[in-house]
């Protein structure tokens, strides 16, 4: 078993707001992130796939295929978007980095025809990242 990680970057804006809470509560919990006009980040996404090395090719999977899948499923949906307004799932779910990581897992897991999805790591800034293992 070997683990392969591919990195991709995308930029998007978001804001944090829970309609079930009062405006004061929203401001108290989310602080600056509650600004309704949104703010942006350069996200770095790391997708880790586990698998066995094919003895003939010496590879777990074709990195080009994984790159293409990330572009099709994630970047086309989220890159240069205002997540709250333009990505359907985030009109109802707060687009925190935690929720984005979970959503990326849900988008990729059923489409992966090679190996096993092991981890989604999403950096919101170089100093903050979340890991999701599908459970």
């Amino acid at each position, binding site marked *: *078993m*070997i*683990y*392969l*990680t*591919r*990195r*991709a970057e995308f930029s998007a804006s978001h804001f944090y707001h829970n309609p079930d809470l009062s405006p004061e509560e929203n401001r108290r919990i989310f602080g600056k992130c509650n600004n309704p006009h949104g703010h942006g980040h350069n996200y770095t996404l790391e997708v*880790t796939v*586990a698998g066995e*090395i094919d003895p*003939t*090719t*010496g*590879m*777990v999977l*074709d*990195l*080009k295929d994984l790159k293409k899948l990330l572009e099709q499923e994630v970047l086309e949906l989220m890159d240069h978007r205002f997540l709250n307004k333009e990505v359907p799932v985030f009109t109802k779910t707060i687009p925190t980095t935690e929720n984005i990581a979970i959503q990326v897992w849900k988008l990729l897991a059923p489409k992966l025809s090679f190996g096993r999805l*092991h*981890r989604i790591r999403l950096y919101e800034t170089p100093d903050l990242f979340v*890991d999701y*293992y599908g459970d």
Partner: protein
Amino acid sequence: MVYLTRRYRFAASHRLHSDGLTEERNRQVYGKCNNPYGHGHNYVLEVTVAGPVEPSTGMVYDLVKLDGIVQREVLERFDHTYLNLDVETFRHVVPTTENLCVEVFRLLDDKLREGATRPVPSLARVRLEETSSNYFEYAGGKELPRGR
């Protein structure tokens, strides 16, 4: 249990070409990486050792000793080489970064234990970065520890 990771760098070239595939299939599978003269990378290697902290030294593993082992076993063997021609293992095994990662683990695993104080720290993980966009991790066939 404490995990200690040390980072090293080496530069090498390789060509991805499998004798088990036709010329055409090699080009399909490996694309640019199949170019006949090879191409190079700056590899970033992370070696993670795990073990209890030894009470008398306060350390998991002697970093000077680790540096010496990695220098002899890995860097001297691979740095500034053409892996396909200069490294015996890769004359018949495709030097993908997957295979290189497993080979580095194999080379280090036994050596780390030699002369180590008890309890013996274990090689927990080898992480090998081929470019800033992709890396490979091998834990001797075991599940990777989470959160790292």
